[in-house]
């Protein structure tokens, strides 16, 4: 029964995803593509946070993927089939190198350390005009043409992005539900207990950081192939703050929490268009309200509703460990 409901829900979601661009105007089709890519950004960020460490370098790692794809495309005319995975691998490699200084730190120090490392990378992009193009960045990247299909059009590109992101989400989900995911959780909730049965906590924190960077690197490549240009500012702290808001508002205890967060807030963002001056204030208010009234994020709403209907107590997992 449960299985049947799941299949039906899954089928409905699939159909909606497939037909939705045909009902949108051009501007919204654009937005839909960015949203699809941002879903991968937050889902991969969740993997990093599974071990309990929140980084401020995720946006920059996306940029590493973006620059990789850009340089490969501009200098060697390599297509997306090559630039996408390579962007992921290079982000992962940069993350692997950063593990050595960064993972000596935990908690607040890790947060600040990751921010500093990210700014250092952005400085490299800004300072080295060749090959990174400085503040102005690089442009001229284009999506592929396959036969008659021009992926410059939003609808084909949306299907392409949807396919790539779906595969990545599937892989991320598999990782989280496997024993590897269980071990990552164990490192988060009680590192000493995990160590006492042989878990190398350093290795698992590194694994989460490197794998998360791999997937966000792919997201970076997906983005640059669509918009065609890349600048250091696209991946600055501003975008990082958005990632954090999406994840916090959506909730980070479940796989789908951050995904709901980015979808709902993107739609919300669209609906307050035209109030441009007070938009930051509205955002701030939403963040504060959601922390006050939904500390576990949007993902906790179904449980709350269920409890409200049945009239039982809500069992909420603790927010932090002691």
């Amino acid at each position, binding site marked *: 029964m449960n299985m049947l409901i799941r299949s039906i829900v899954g089928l409905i979601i699939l159909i909606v995803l497939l037909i939705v661009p045909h009902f949108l105007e051009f501007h919204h089709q654009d937005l839909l593509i960015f949203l699809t890519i941002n879903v991968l950004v937050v889902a991969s960020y969740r993997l990093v946070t599974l071990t309990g460490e929140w980084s401020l370098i995720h946006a920059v790692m996306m940029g590493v993927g973006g620059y990789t794809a850009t340089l490969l495309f501009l200098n060697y005319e390599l297509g997306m089939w090559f630039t996408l995975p390579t962007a992921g691998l290079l982000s992962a490699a940069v993350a692997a190198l950063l593990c050595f200084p960064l993972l000596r730190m935990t908690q607040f120090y890790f947060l600040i350390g990751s921010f500093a490392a990210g700014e250092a990378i952005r400085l490299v992009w800004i300072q080295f005009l060749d090959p990174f193009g400085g503040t102005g960045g690089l442009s001229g990247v284009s999506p592929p043409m396959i036969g008659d299909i021009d992926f410059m059009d939003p609808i084909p590109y949306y299907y392409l992005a949807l396919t790539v992101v779906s595969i990545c989400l599937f*892989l991320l989900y*598999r*990782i989280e539900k*496997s*024993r*590897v*995911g*269980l*071990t990552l*959780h*164990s490192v988060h*909730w*009680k590192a*000493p*207990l*995990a*160590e*006492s*049965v*042989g*878990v*190398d*906590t350093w290795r698992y924190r590194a*694994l989460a950081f490197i*794998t998360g960077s791999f997937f966000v690197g792919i997201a970076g490549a997906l983005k640059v192939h669509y918009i065609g240009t890349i600048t250091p500012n696209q991946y600055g702290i501003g975008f990082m703050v958005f990632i954090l808001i999406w994840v916090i508002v959506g909730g980070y205890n479940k796989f789908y929490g951050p995904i709901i967060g980015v979808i709902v807030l993107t739609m919300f963002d669209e609906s307050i268009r035209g109030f441009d001056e007070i938009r930051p204030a509205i955002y701030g208010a939403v963040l504060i309200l959601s922390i006050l009234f939904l500390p576990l994020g949007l993902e906790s709403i179904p449980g709350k509703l269920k409890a409200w209907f049945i009239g039982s107590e809500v*069992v909420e*997992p*603790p927010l932090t*460990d002691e």
Partner: protein
Amino acid sequence: MPILEVKNVTKQFGGLTALDNISFHVDEGEIRGLIGPNGAGKSTMFKNIAGFYKPTSGDIHYQGQSISGRKPHQIAEMGIVRTFQETTLFQEMTVFENALVGCHTRARTDLFSAILGLDKQKQRQAADKVMEVLEFMGLSERRDQLASELPLGSQRALAISIALVSEPKLMLMDEPFAGMNPEETNHMMELTRKVRESGITIVLVEHDMKAVMGLCNYLTVLNFGQLLAQGTPEEVRSNDKVIEAYLGGAN
């Protein structure tokens, strides 16, 4: 043959000497009691053995090999597992998941086999091992309950289950009987004996004298970081220094 040798171990915290030149050894197959009043240095001793602290000086040998200075996970991999004085569990995981974490080194998995599902056989063996241990500890009925929802006795049993699943050779148990009622204590004593019979050497830190005297074949007594006495339970019970420092104070 000694499975564990503690050689002249000293541990200082700033000016405080928590362990002062301690030496003793534990033979294979023992249930060794490590006792002493509050603050004697028992937990500190365990943390040094399990690699959570590094001795200020001295050496610790396990199966003839020096292990001091190794990381906790390396020592765990060699077969030493410690349980914690405060109940330490993954509160938001189920009983089954808690114990499954214990499989970490025995049924290791990696990212690629996890994604591709290549290690189904290994995962099934891990699950079997977990169920066997939960059965043994009387927790199999509660396998899908959250650890945080268990009564205290079961929480303690689960902490030991996590350790057992890792198939240790030497178990360091820090006050497993704390806060238990007499019935739970009796049950846990029974289980501890069964653990020993399955071939695991045990070092037991415990304040419950009935449990200590009933279980241990040999006792090592610490007081203020010093080795106060060693001997059979009878010898220790009649040792004047021990009575003065510990039993006298407790009664």
